[in-house]
């Protein structure tokens, strides 16, 4: 059995973590936590970390014990410098809180790339986790901002992702708000939908990694996939409906851009992949699977496949890393531009203020 640690940092991370806890309760209603038990496939420990106590209070399905407020802080106002300082000041306490939860084989650290707290804590936290747990695999799950959210968020996203890569995570899974929001109307429902999607996929993934059935993927396979390419990738998911329970189309669909958390063209941009197929035995035609997987692996590098026999219509999860990420480059360009503009704006303001002060340069206050 796998020992899994899921940490959500910052508001975005907290909320996705809460969605995972909710999904583990069976999902549907607000009251499920009162009558249901969480059904995690493995031993899963969750922890929500935040500098803003209000963000923690907002959570519904994460037990109070699993919410950690970094003392004396009220958010960091998207300022990563303040955030980093906050982490260092409270590092021991945070690490103690994690240590209490025992040993882990794999940890997921969920955060937004653009906020203050999550984006600054996560790289440092991952670094500490790798220090403390020798054999742990740490996967970052980063949520990219809406592009129109502003220059600071863009800048934060750019720098935090770099930080993330520098601390040598075992892989980064990207979730792009900008890309996913298309489905929903208002921001609140968009967030909820995105969070639920991520939660469902993460739980499915954990279940697949921890399954002892024949022809399954394991943690090693997952790590291999995540180390491929740029070391960052995303997850696709498709659940066949009754009308078209075809396995081939389900697998195909799981790879389609519309079912990914981050926009990419798998057949062209992926480095390594892992396809996990779950469903009733009657749907699981190995030939079909092999054909589809072969088609994919002939285009990209290695493709792991896992088959989990479980009652129900076929569900397919695909995890892959990218060789190239044009979308990311675009974002960095935007970020650079934004930083430059920010700099100019600041200079302009500074100059204007200096000009203003110039009027009183040789004067003194007279009473």
């Amino acid at each position, binding site marked *: 059995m796998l020992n899994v640690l899921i940490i959500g940092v910052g508001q975005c991370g907290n909320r996705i973590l809460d969605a995972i806890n909710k999904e583990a309760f069976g999902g549907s209603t607000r009251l499920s*936590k*009162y009558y249901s038990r969480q059904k995690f496939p493995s031993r899963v420990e969750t922890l929500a970390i935040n500098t803003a106590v209000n963000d*923690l*209070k907002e*959570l*519904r*399905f*994460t*037990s*109070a*014990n699993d*919410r950690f407020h970094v003392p004396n802080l009220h958010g960091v106002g998207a300022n990563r410098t303040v955030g980093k300082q906050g982490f260092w000041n409270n590092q021991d306490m945070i690490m103690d809180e994690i240590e209490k939860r025992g040993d882990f084989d794999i940890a997921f650290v969920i955060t937004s790339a653009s906020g203050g707290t999550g984006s600054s804590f996560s790289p440092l936290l991952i670094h500490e986790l790798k220090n403390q747990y020798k054999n742990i695999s740490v996967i970052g799950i980063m949520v990219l901002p809406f592009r129109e959210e502003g220059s600071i968020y863009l800048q934060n996203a750019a720098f935090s992702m770099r930080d993330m890569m520098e601390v040598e995570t075992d892989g980064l899974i990207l979730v792009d708000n900008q890309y996913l929001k298309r489905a929903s109307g208002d921001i609140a429902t968009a967030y909820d939908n995105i969070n639920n999607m991520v939660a469902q996929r993460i739980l499915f993934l954990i279940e697949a990694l921890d399954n002892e059935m024949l022809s399954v993927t394991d943690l090693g396979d997952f790590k291999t996939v995540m180390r491929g390419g740029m070391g960052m990738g995303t997850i696709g998911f498709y659940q066949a409906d009754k009308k078209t329970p075809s396995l081939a189309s389900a697998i195909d669909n799981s790879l389609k851009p519309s079912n990914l958390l981050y926009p990419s063209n798998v057949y062209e941009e992926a480095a390594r992949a892992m396809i996990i197929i779950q469903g009733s035995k009657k749907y699981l035609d190995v030939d079909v699977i092999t054909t589809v997987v072969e088609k994919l692996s002939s285009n990209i590098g290695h493709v792991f496949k896992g088959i989990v026999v479980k009652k129900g219509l076929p569900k397919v999860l695909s995890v892959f890393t990218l060789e190239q990420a044009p979308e990311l480059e675009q974002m960095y360009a935007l970020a650079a531009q934004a930083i430059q503009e920010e700099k100019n704006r600041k200079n302009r303001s500074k100059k204007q203020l200096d000009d203003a002060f110039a009027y009183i340069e040789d004067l003194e206050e007279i009473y």
Partner: protein
Amino acid sequence: MRLIYLAVLVLLIAPVMAGSGDDDGETTSREFSLRVDEGVKIGEYRVELINVVSVMDGLIEVKVWKRVSEFEDWRVMEDHRDSNFDEGADRGGLTLTVVEIFDDDTIRMRAEYRDDYGYPRKYTTERGLAPKNLPELIVEKKFDRTDISVNDEVKVTVTVKNVGNDTARNVLIFETPPLSQFRYLAGYPPKIKSQLAPKESDFAVYSMVAVTEGEVLVPALVVSYADAKGNIASVSSSSFTINIKPKRKPNLDLIVEPVPPIEHGGTGVINVTVLNNGEASAYRVEIKGETTPADGGIEVTKGSLGKTYFEIAPGASENYSATVKGSRSGNYTATIKANYQSDEVIMQKEVSFEIIVLERPYKYLYFVLVLPVLLVAFWIFRRYKEYKY
């Protein structure tokens, strides 16, 4: 009555006065009638007729006396002969003559006396005022009961009392012939003493049994008797009607106190009162009881639902009780039947009542309800605490 006499007197006296008017102008004579125990006042003189001694012989007895003087004269007078009293009319006394004797009660008399004595005025003598010595009987016929039904025995008491002041002789009772509505047992016809002294009474009793129902006129009883002189009188009791009711019957009432619901496995007591609210005894009372449905869910554990009595007098009541145990819940009906006799006629009474045996109480049943609620509440509270940040 006196006025009439007075008027007659005036009419009779008028011509006499005219005739004797010239006679030395000092005396006058007047005629009047007298009855035994009557008298006339003439001046200070009083003339009283004591007795008609003999109508045939024309003899009467008078008493003449004068007020506020020693003079008193008792004398037997012959009719049509003048008799001088206190030296006669010429000397200031009276001269009396019996003119006619009508019967042994009434005579006609003429008196001669001094003119200035005025008119004779009548009065009743002291002896006349004194009560007469005559027997007087009163009769009473009485039934000893007024509420009579067929087969009832009635005692008739006949009482005769002499309330007069002389002995009644030859007392005879004339009781009516036997009434067809009754059968006479003893003492009929009633007999009593033939002589009854003043204040004395005698009675006779006879008994009879009412035979047919309906209204009966009980006729008066007549008693005849004679006084000392042999005069015969008769009195009768008053007649009355009685109503003979139909034959008396017993009527048993079975009264059962309502039995409170019996707890499952518990017992209840059935109290039965047998009351004879009829008018005759009930004999050979046989009471039987049963419960339905007879599924054994209820059984008598003490006493019995039935009972027998040889006799229950009218107005009397008997009591008995039975203890029943309810071992199965349900509604049971108990029926109690009484058979009894009266005059060889068999009668029957029946009463039914309900006995409820309650459901088995599940004492700690509420735990079954409360416990899960508590558990759920506790669980929810714990979860609430767990997720309250």
